[in-house]
């Protein structure tokens, strides 16, 4: 009898222990977050995922990190409502920066949680960024916080942009320099700032031009007058000819000025270019043209330019 | 306090011999139980040998009644410091790696019987009392008989 009681006791102890060990952590977590919340507050968790360059509101854990593709965050805040921002990193060091709401830049270390309590006071759409280079798709690690008045409906999200998702891809087959340039443009995450096909328009806080200028008009800015001129240059580059050899029979006027421009574009890619501030006393803009000289060879840069030259929508075409 | 062999009376020696057969039988049964359902062949051999030990015990018991009559003195093999005959597995890992073959069971038993034979012979050499000496001789001969039984088994298995 005593033995049987001991067996039952031990069995119950085991089961209770297993249930407690498995579920109590969740209860504890819920309680400890609740303790820190002012009345009426909401919680928004943003987790940085370096592999895809995403801030996501979805739950990222040891179980799903390896196979899931996390949707980019689009948090909705309400004017006057306290909001606990829980900033996490699922992998490497990130920095959270939402200049419009005066949050950050804050370093977010992997496996730690950074709690920030904010109460927005005005409506608006506020860009947030990662400001620590966290990987190839780092510059795509952006999003918008919507601050709405209490009760106003949440506007439908813009159709998902292709540039939100970054993926490694193998280099293209064949010898085409333009195709290789297109691949490099994607592979190095250039599109995350400069837009898909260099269309630009990505907002950059306190940047003199507000949004990142397009690259699709690079041909024009490099003083190529027309489509024929661009074709001649791209053609020569596909043949891997030295552009200087074209000087004897220049394909268009001001060819030498073009060559000078070509050099300075290459220099910008190689050495980077800090963005001008709109408000000189303000913080530097979060997005910045980085020096790519360490990662890109001379040929890589040539290929990139060749690709960009094909993007120009000459007269008559749609912009 | 365990006793040494030279302090035993003839009556006690015979009782000890009976106990030895008894404990061997139980030992064989214990092994048979463990191997039952695991290695039936081995278990069968152990069972067979346990029955054989029972038979030896009966023979000795009859002799005891004839010679001394009455009940056995309370003497267990454990009470005597010397080991007379003790069948045992020879390797602690037999059951893990299946190294105990049915044939080996006979060999182990044979080893024990030979040990007993040797033991009684030595006791015979040291015994001063002629009744005791006669008893030891008898026991040694009996063990020789057991040994040849097992040798026969080994030959035919």
């Amino acid at each position, binding site marked *: 009898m005593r*033995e049987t009681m*001991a*067996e039952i006791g*031990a*069995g119950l*102890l*085991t089961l209770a*222990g*297993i249930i407690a*060990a*498995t579920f109590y*952590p*969740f209860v*504890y*977590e819920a309680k*400890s977050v609740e303790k820190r919340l002012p009345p009426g507050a909401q919680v928004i968790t943003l987790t940085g995922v370096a592999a895809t360059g995403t801030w996501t509101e979805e739950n*990222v*854990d*040891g*179980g799903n*990190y*390896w196979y899931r593709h996390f949707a980019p965050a689009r948090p909705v805040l309400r004017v006057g409502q306290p909001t606990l921002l*829980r900033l*996490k*990193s*699922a*992998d490497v060091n990130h920095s959270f920066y939402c200049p419009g709401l005066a949050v950050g830049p804050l370093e977010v270390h*992997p*496996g*730690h*949680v950074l709690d920030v309590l904010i109460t927005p006071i005005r409506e608006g759409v506020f860009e947030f960024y990662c400001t620590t280079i966290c990987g190839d798709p780092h510059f795509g690690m952006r999003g918008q916080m919507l601050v709405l008045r209490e009760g106003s409906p949440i506007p439908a999200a813009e159709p998902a942009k292709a540039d939100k998702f970054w993926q*490694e891809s193998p280099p293209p087959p064949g010898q085409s320099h333009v195709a290789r340039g297109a691949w490099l443009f994607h592979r190095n995450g250039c599109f995350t700032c400069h837009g898909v096909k260099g269309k630009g328009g990505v907002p950059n806080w306190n940047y003199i031009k507000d949004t990142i200028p397009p690259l699709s008009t690079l041909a024009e800015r490099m003083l190529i007058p027309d489509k024929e001129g661009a074709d001649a240059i791209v053609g020569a580059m596909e043949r891997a000819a030295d552009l200087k050899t074209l000087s004897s029979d220049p394909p268009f006027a001001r060819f030498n000025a073009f060559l000078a421009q070509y050099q300075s574009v290459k220099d910008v890619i190689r050495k980077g270019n800090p963005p001008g501030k709109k408000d000189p006393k303000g913080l530097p803009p979060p997005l910045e043209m980085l020096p790519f000289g360490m990662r890109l060879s001379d040929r890589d840069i040539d290929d990139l330019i060749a690709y960009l030259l094909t993007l120009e929508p000459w007269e008559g075409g749609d912009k | 306090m365990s006793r040494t062999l030279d302090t035993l009376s003839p009556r006690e020696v015979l009782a000890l011999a009976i106990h030895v057969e*008894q*404990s061997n039988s*139980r*030992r064989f049964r*214990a*092994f048979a*139980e*463990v191997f*039952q*359902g*695991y*290695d039936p062949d081995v278990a069968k051999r152990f069972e067979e040998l346990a029955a054989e030990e029972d038979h030896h015990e009966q023979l000795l018991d009859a002799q005891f009644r004839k010679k001394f009559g009455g009940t056995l003195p309370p003497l267990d*093999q*454990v009470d005597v*410091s010397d*080991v007379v005959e*003790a069948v*045992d*597995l*020879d*390797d*602690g*890992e*037999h*059951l*893990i*790696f*299946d190294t105990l073959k049915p044939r080996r069971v006979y060999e182990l038993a044979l080893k024990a019987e030979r040990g007993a034979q040797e033991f009684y012979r030595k006791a015979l050499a040291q015994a001063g009392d002629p009744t005791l000496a006669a008893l030891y001789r008898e026991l040694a001969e009996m063990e020789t008989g057991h040994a040849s039984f097992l040798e026969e088994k080994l030959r035919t298995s």
Partner: protein
Amino acid sequence: MSPSGNIPQPLTEPAPGSAAPPPAPVDKPWRIDLLRALPPLKWLVKRRWFQFAVVLPNLLFFMLFLTTGVFGTPVGSRNILIVFVWIFWWFLLISAMVPLASRVWCTMCPFPFFGEWIQRGALIRSRGVDPKKAKEGPGVVVGRNRYFGLNWRWPKALSNLWVQNIGFLFLCTFSAHFLTRPLVSVIVLGGLILVATVLHLLYRQRAFCNYVCPVSGFLSLYSMTSVVEVRSKEADTCAKCKDKGCLAGGEKGWGCPWFMYPSKMERNNYCGLCMECVKTCPYDNMTVNLRPFCSDTKIKGLDEAWKAFIMVTLALVYSVLYLGPWGFLKDWANVFEKGNWAGFFAYVAGLWVSALVLFPAIYFLPVWAGWRWSRQKPPTIVILGQAPVNPPLKETFLRFVYPLVPFGMMAWVSFSLPLILVNGSYIPMVLSDPFGWGWDLFGTAHLAWSPVVPHWTPYVQVFLLLQGLYFALKQGYRHSVAMYGARNRALKAFAPVAVLLTVIEIAFLVLYVG
């Protein structure tokens, strides 16, 4: 060997003092009966609830770890599962538990918990039964215990360490993935619990532990070195014992769950220190001894020998991978991060071929050379019962593989030392915040990662490695003397192996401190 090189010594007049070969080293092993020396320990291990009390906390931690693996942070260094299991536990196992307490891990291991619970239908008590009444009642009676489940016997072909050898090698091939991915760890550890449970239902007692568990394999090999053993006290008492409770079980306890015959146990390899025999022995004749390091010296089969090869190869490969200057090898091993499948296959092929073929072959050569070199012409008249003049090659091989046991174990300890020093500071961090959810239970969650590698680390590593070599050479030479008797033949036979061991030792030294 004379220091003057190859000058032959005159045979007729031996140099003074070397007339008779010195007597072969005699083992005078000391033993201290721990249960006699420590009565509270004896009281404890004799309790029926002893093992349950040790396993339960371990099991609950384990369940918590599995939860953190799935729901905690994916960051390995901040997830308690990764830090505790693969950094802390591994270090504790190889450098403390095994050398100091043999297979004490098996006493507290949570893997077979559920299986054993179902199989025994009990957590604490023992289900003793009269074998004559075996048919009355459910389950199967083995010895004098009743078990539930099918209690099949383990297939004969697998009654060895090969499943464990291959399983361990397989797990080690993917070790880089455990260390970074909590999910993989959850699958592996959860899978082991599942397999253990299923096997307990199908096969008798601890078949899983004896033949399948990949951890068990190396525990069994290296527990030979341990300073602790479970043994019988008096051989005579066991010889006279009629009941064989240690084997057959009974009311007081279960028959040895590891299929050992504890009374005749000579090696630690397959003893899981469950203390059942201490409880079942009717004469109180089983105990726990303290003994010298490296007291079990017999390798019994090729499966055990290969286990030793695999362990040393892995120690070498890991040292090259993590401590060597070749970063590309690390990338090859870590295929899911780097996606270099060709490199990964090269790594896998290299690892498996070296562990299973190359290293054993390289080791065999000096064994064979020594065996040939020390061969003598057998006498024309063979005396029955006398040991052959030339021991068989297989025996020589098995005996000379033994040195790899202390050698490999010390290499592992030496390899693990800097790992725990570098990553040790994660332990207080994850203790305070096991899930990486921002908790701070003990106020240690925000300690900075501080890789403490004191300047004396390499000295300790060198010391450990040299200890390993010392024990390897000592035990190898002893085996040689045991086979050949005469000192010069023993030296001849063992010298080539000793040279190889020294060369491997130098490779380790160069990798660790060079």
